[in-house]
């Protein structure tokens, strides 16, 4: 009899959603170490960090599937199921992109040329800052649940979302500077290396784009009058 009250509470997907994001964050923060190793030309550390990123990405994948499998049709959530799954999917794609970067960097021996190294570091830093904005919003999920996605808490998250959009824009500006430098340096490297750097930039840029998309997804769950 009392059991029916307890059975009413399904397994909440929000805490697992947050820990999935923590795994994604672990992938993203390893990118800093990855490029430091590249700069120091430490091939052993580079391999090791790349494997570690792949590991974290795999763990995030497992968590994602676990969350999905525990969302039966009968589960009623305070936000739309579709939004929840899209948030999860976007988080997971960020980890995928980090893994892509790690793979690209280890495909062939390349080096971070001094010609564009400072621009590259700026680009990487800003990418991580943009991602951190989205990460913080996911951390606010608990408070959002507490205030049922409205009120001053929702207002606060809304400004955080705008902040992420702005940071994404700054990443775009930084990327433009970096690309200019890379094209200037095209004679200094082989075509494959040049192409590889293009791909790395692309993958890194999509991290901030996805972070912005994630923030906007959460914006859609808010109840703001």
């Amino acid at each position: 009899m009392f059991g029916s009250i307890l059975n009413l509470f399904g397994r909440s997907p929000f805490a697992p959603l947050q820990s999935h994001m923590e795994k994604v964050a672990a992938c993203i923060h390893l990118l800093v170490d990855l490029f430091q190793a590249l700069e120091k030309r430490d091939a052993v550390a580079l391999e090791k960090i790349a494997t570690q990123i792949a590991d974290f990405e795999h763990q995030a994948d497992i968590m994602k599937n676990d969350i999905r499998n525990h969302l039966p049709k009968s589960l009623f959530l305070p936000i739309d199921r579709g939004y929840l799954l899209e948030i999860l999917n976007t988080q997971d794609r960020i980890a995928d992109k980090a893994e892509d970067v790690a793979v690209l960097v280890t495909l062939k021996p390349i080096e971070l040329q001094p010609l564009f190294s400072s621009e590259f570091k700026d680009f990487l830093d800003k990418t991580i800052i943009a991602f951190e904005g989205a990460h913080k919003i996911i951390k606010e999920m608990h408070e959002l649940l507490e205030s049922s996605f409205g009120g001053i808490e929702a207002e606060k998250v809304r400004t955080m979302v705008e902040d992420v959009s702005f940071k994404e824009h700054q990443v775009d500006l930084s990327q433009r500077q970096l690309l200019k430098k890379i094209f200037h340096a095209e004679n200094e490297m082989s075509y494959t290396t040049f192409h590889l750097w293009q791909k790395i930039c692309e993958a890194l840029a999509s991290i901030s784009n996805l972070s912005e998309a994630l923030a906007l997804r959460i914006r859609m769950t808010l109840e703001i009058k």
Partner: protein
Amino acid sequence: MSLEMLLLILVILAGGYMAWNIGANDVANAMGTSVGSGALSLRQAVIIAAILEFSGAFFFGSHVSETIQKGIVDSNIFANPLTIVYGMLSALLAAGLWLQIASYYGWPVSTTHSIIGAVVGFGTIVGGFEAVYWENVAFIASSWLLSPILGGILSFVIFSSLRRYIFYAQNPVNAAKRITPALVFCLLFILVLLLLYKGLSNVELNLNFLQSIGISLISGALGFALCQLCLHAVTLAPNKPITAPSEYQPEVSNQLEKAKKHLLQVQAASRGVIQYQASELLEEIDMLSESLKQKEASGRESAEYAVVEKIFGYLQVMSACLMAFAHGANDVANAIGPLSAAIDILTTGFISDKASVPTWTLGLGGIGIVIGLATWGWRVIETIGKKITELTPTRGFSAEFGAAATILLASRLGLPISTTHTLVGSVIGVGLARGIEALDLRTTRHIFISWIITIPAGAILSIVFFYLFKIIF
């Protein structure tokens, strides 16, 4: 005479067993959430539940008991009064047995549904189709559908308004302080009125409408004053951590404002590239001060929500008490209704026209519930309290209050409804107001199925018991 004496003892034992069952299993509904949220310790919860369950049963239990006693089966159709005694005894045993089976397998059945099923089953088979007041039964059955819906709607409205006026306010603590006493006043006024106005007939307390209103107003005002006092105590203590944000002193943002002012002067005095760079810097300063403000605000907000939850922790104790009272008032009838029907015949020797529930039987039911609570129920409260973390005080208050008000209203109307199912409806109501992280709605299907199965199961078991008694005596 010795047969009647034996039957009397048997009936009292069966009624006591039923009351024990109710106390052991269902009281957790009322107290589990308060223990879970830490507002009450287990010992406090058990003592409060015992007192309120008993008073609910004793003072307010007669309405529903009368319905079960006289409102379902037409006693005049039976030639031999003892048939009814056997019937009610069978119904009690059938319902008790069915509940034990259901508890063993963990099915969400209701004590109310099993006893009504048992009484209706015995009445139809033994007395014939016309022995049952089908309009009354239909009315009761419709109340089983309506009570979870009404509880859900009430809880939805209560939680939505708490959200609207407290959580969405600029300063949640002040809003809670302003609204809570008024809330307490309204609650007490309505409930005391519900109880007093022609409600307490079995203790010879018949007040007229004006007297009832007067007493209700007084108790409402008392609640208001008490609430003000409590709020004063709660909100004085946690003031310090709110006003002292550790790392971001107010000077920092002042200094930022100064820097901004100087930069504005630079921007105004220069042109070209320098002007552009100055405006860039200004933008960055704006961002910095914005993020500082956010950090300050977020620290304050979490603390504020915590204070609001603390205030509602006390309110939740109140709603839990109400729930225990309402539960005692409604569910004691499941044991006492059939019991008093049998006792009426055994002591007077004939079937009286008017339903009469002796006060001492209500006391017996109350004691049975308290014993059930003391021997087994506290363990259930402990388990359920440990598991319910999903219901924070505001949510628990909304759910319990919606359910308790519905149950009291039904008790006042003499309708035997399922307290568990009403509470389930209320929790879903809070969930629909985006209050609960995840609700598994499969439970509603289980409840509906067990609802359908319980009635024939109770009926068949009571018929089996009836013919068994026929053979024995």
